[in-house]
């Protein structure tokens, strides 16, 4: 046999099809139905914001890695996901430059300064959203939810005087409209259609990107708490950022626990925090704060909850 060179490497010699890039691409695909609903509701302005979000996030990642002399990893699409999520988490009235600042904050401060993908302790898109809400409150809430020149209906008028759409819909919004995200429904670009977000959820489950655990337990906790607190359960589930948050943000691998029990505790915590903030807190919306708070608890959950290994021998046996 002629001399030839063989590849020698450690087992296993075959690998699965799911790479980081494939996972991130699936997340983007799963977000598309919600983006489409946002665009139908808000038009060209929504398209522009989504584009600005993705472009700024990817560009910041490229530049940050260039400056820090790290390998450029924008092709793993994780920055694109962060940019898209943040854009979906701002009201249509948010100026493009505010969103861009948010994307830079998410990628450079929250992600790259802590070591890049996999090393951040808090969800970059959510941290950036909270940063924007704190820094530009008038551009992130209230009238920012209403497209310019549409301040006509009673509901939108109510929006202007109240804090967020979570309060607007409470009176008189048909539940089906709220679920589908059509008619006089307002919110952040990506959160208005529960139906579209659930389609994305189904896609992620089918592609085995995430498990049902965090979203279902999170929404379940909110449903039970709302019932006990005498709130309108379907409304609490469909309004605000709960669907977007529980399906796409709370499930972020990096900042959620790595055991099933840890995930359940984490999701229950998210649900309780959300309800407490919504019903008793100063803010009408609590999803972002809840998830960020539980992100911080994740290292503790991972430290104290381990998988029960096969053949565990009891210490005192």
């Amino acid at each position, binding site marked *: 046999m002629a001399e030839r060179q*063989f*590849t020698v490497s*450690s087992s296993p010699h*075959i690998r*699965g099809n799911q*790479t980081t890039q494939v996972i991130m691409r699936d997340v983007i695909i799963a977000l598309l139905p919600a983006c489409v609903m946002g665009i139908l509701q808000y038009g060209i302005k929504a398209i522009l914001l989504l584009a600005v979000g993705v472009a700024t996030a990817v560009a910041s990642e490229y530049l940050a890695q260039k400056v820090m002399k790290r390998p450029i990893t924008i092709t793993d699409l994780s920055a694109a996901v962060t940019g898209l999520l943040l854009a979906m988490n701002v009201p249509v009235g948010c100026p493009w430059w505010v969103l861009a600042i948010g994307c830079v904050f998410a990628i450079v401060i929250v992600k790259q300064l802590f070591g890049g993908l996999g090393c951040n302790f808090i969800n970059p898109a959510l941290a950036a959203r909270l940063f924007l809400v704190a820094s530009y409150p008038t551009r992130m809430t209230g009238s920012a939810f209403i497209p310019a020149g549409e301040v006509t209906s009673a509901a939108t008028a109510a929006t202007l005087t109240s804090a967020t759409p979570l309060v607007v819909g409470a009176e008189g919004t048909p539940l089906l409209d709220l679920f589908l995200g059509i008619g006089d429904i307002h919110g952040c670009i990506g959160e208005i259609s529960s139906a579209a977000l659930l389609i994305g959820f189904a896609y992620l489950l089918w592609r085995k990107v995430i498990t049902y655990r965090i979203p279902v337990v999170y929404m379940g906790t909110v449903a039970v708490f709302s019932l006990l607190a005498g709130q309108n359960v379907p409304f609490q589930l469909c309004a605000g950022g709960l669907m977007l948050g529980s399906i796409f943000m709370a499930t972020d691998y*990096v900042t959620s626990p790595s*055991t099933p029990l840890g995930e359940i505790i984490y999701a229950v915590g998210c649900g309780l925090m959300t309800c407490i903030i919504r019903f008793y807190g100063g803010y009408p919306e609590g999803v972002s704060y809840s998830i960020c708070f539980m992100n911080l608890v994740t290292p503790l959950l991972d430290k104290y909850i381990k998988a029960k290994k096969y*053949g565990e021998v009891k210490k005192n046996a």
Partner: protein
Amino acid sequence: MDIKHATFKGGIHPSYNKHYTEKLPIEDMPAPKVVVIPMSQHIGAPAKPVVEVGQQVKMGQLIGEAGGFISANIHASVSGTVTAIETRTSFNGGKVTCVVIENDFTDTLDESIQPKDWTTMDKDAILQAIADAGIVGLGGATFPTRAKLIPSADAVIDHMIINGAECEPYLTSDHALMRETPEKVVGGLKIMMKVLGQSKGYIGIEDNKNDAIEAVKNASDDSIEIYSLHTKYPQGGEKQLVNAITGREVPSGGLPAAVGCIVANSGTAAAVYEALTTGMPLISRIVTVTGSGIKTPKVLRFRIGTPTKDILEYCGGLTDDCAKVVSGGPMMGFAQYDMEVPATKGTSGLLCMNKADAAIEEPSNCIRCAKCTVACPMHLMPLYIAGYAEKGNVEQLENYSALDCIECGSCAYVCPARRPLVSTIRYAKRLVQAERRKKQS
């Protein structure tokens, strides 16, 4: 007879790629001109050569004597002349003493090989015959079978299990064996049941081999229980098989005997049957030669000590774009660089991969997706073991039970970041063992 269904928790569903060979009959490969027979083809002490250079040997003649209780006899797989006793490279990259025999192509049988009737033999005589025949576990781990069949005195054995799962992708050797000669597998199980004083025996076969399940069922009687196992890797891992069939868990650091189980591979059972009927020692075995990098995939019975290159040539040779040859299966096998290395008692497969299949992807950052913890059949947390290994934190490696890893490769298979989890965890195990030795001394 009912066929029961069983499985374990964890594991993965890789692409099985058994189509290359799963319908092929077992083909006898003619003995090569020269065989190179390593004195260490098993776990435990190497055998001691008992022949000299220049000596004439017959087929089946003892050429290496077991070097202890955990060791195995080695026999000549051809008749001919010993031309060298020297150190050669083995399949795992180590160096091993080998007896080199030039084949005289007469296959003259050694006089010591006489037909046996195990039904009239007692337990000790059977165990002696198994040891004489040099039988070791043919699933890949090559643990000496006699030693396995003598569990420690305090173990109460109630499950003698034959492992016919063959969960490694690509490999179909056990499949072909069970389909073509199920009576040998069942016969071997009955011999081992006799040794262990069992009235019942168990066989587990993955349900992607229904023809083998049917064949083994037809060859069995009421004393044999057959389990159709869910096709999932590593269903044939000893600890996973014990769990699937009995629901028990082998304690950490222990053997299946600790929970009443003895597990032997279906190929081992057939070898035991052969030794206790025809009297033939273990001088041949079945190998699956397969993959995108070999011209004609085959399921071959070859003489122990046949150089890899002879087997590959018999299968039409490697394709031009073959980039990797693995001894064993794709999940746990060893990548080979020297095609002179002889195939041995443990060679269950020769997987040849073309450039595309052998391509290695660059690892990226761990994204903590925890898919490795779901895949781990030992329910460990590979992400943390690998992470702490990189930091050299031995205390945490003990905390995360690094030593319980069976190196099945499931974690690395699913890892989307393509991290080298298995090799990192092997390193972790070395760190833990070194630390334990340091503490002892």
